[in-house]
């Protein structure tokens, strides 16, 4: 991809950079946590390059460190990652064709999907998806290794408020879509279902419940 020809706003590129930076800090924290729990270095390296889905990796490490079976941990992680199936359907045009799509699928995550779908034109959607995806694919394993090597230095993700940053980015990027009634109604309904379900079902499932909100989806309501 020729960088000079990237059809994106400077603002979008800066935002992608900031998101990668935030992911990098979370990666440092995750790497040092994995090291502190006594995992050898290859565990976080393998997870961060081969799985490349932060929430499920945390869960995997957490369950195994707590004495759970790695296979149970993998199953729990897969449940958290189940939302990538509908994501894949939604971003099929951004992932690309042929051999390129093999990598395009691997870099699919919340951030690359949200940057991709929030751009106005196809060329911009593709560029945002790929730049964000490749950026995270680069910085995530590097920062995880960094964190594991540095070890005891654990950046406190909550003190610098990164836990608020991730939901904020997602909401800000989908906000224009939410201004449409067609999208707003199923999204609100679905999210309400997810929130109600969260205390009662395993991680990953509540988010899938939100798709039930699509039962209220009506095309005509978008005429505005």
């Amino acid at each position, binding site marked *: 991809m020729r960088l000079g020809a990237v059809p994106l706003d400077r603002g979008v590129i800066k935002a992608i950079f900031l998101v990668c930076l935030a992911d990098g800090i979370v990666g440092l924290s995750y790497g040092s946590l994995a090291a502190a729990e006594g995992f050898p270095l290859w565990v976080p390296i393998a997870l961060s390059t081969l799985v490349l889905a932060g929430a*499920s990796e945390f869960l995997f490490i957490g369950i195994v460190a707590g004495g759970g079976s790695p296979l149970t941990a993998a199953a729990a992680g897969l449940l958290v990652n189940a939302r990538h199936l509908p994501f894949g359907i939604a971003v099929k045009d951004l*992932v690309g064709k042929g051999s390129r799509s093999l990598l395009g699928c691997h870099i699919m995550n919340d951030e690359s999907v949200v940057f991709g*779908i929030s751009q106005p034109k196809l060329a911009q959607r593709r560029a945002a998806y790929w730049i964000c995806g490749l950026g995270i694919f680069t910085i995530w394993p590097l920062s995880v290794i960094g964190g594991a090597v540095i070890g005891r230095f654990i950046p406190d993700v909550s003190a610098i408020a990164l836990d608020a940053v991730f939901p904020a980015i997602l909401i800000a990027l989908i906000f224009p879509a939410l201004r449409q009634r067609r999208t707003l109604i199923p999204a609100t309904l679905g999210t309400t279902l997810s929130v109600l379900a969260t205390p009662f079902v395993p991680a990953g499932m509540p988010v899938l419940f939100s798709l039930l909100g699509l039962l209220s989806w009506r095309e005509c309501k978008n005429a505005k």
Partner: protein
Amino acid sequence: MQNNLIIGGIALLAVGTYAIRFAGYRLGSRMQMSDRARNMLSDAATVLLLAVAVTTALFEGTHFAGVARIAGVLFAVFLAWRRTPLILVIIGAALMTALLRYFGVP
């Protein structure tokens, strides 16, 4: 050490996750879609992302995440509603949450 089991677990998680991503992509590419279905699928991603955002804003695991994080995210929603540039939305959310925590809000 249960190294072999850990390798098995990582392999299962990695292969499974990739299969989920790839299956979605293949499924989407194979379906003959009307404009209506296409619109609905793009909304499906938005619905999922809002659910991810709101549940991670409200909960840490299955417990309430605390006021500071929620206030930061709500401030971000307000800024987004006012059409503030994305960078400022991100910084605003982080500042709001960090300040509240600094002053002892959970």
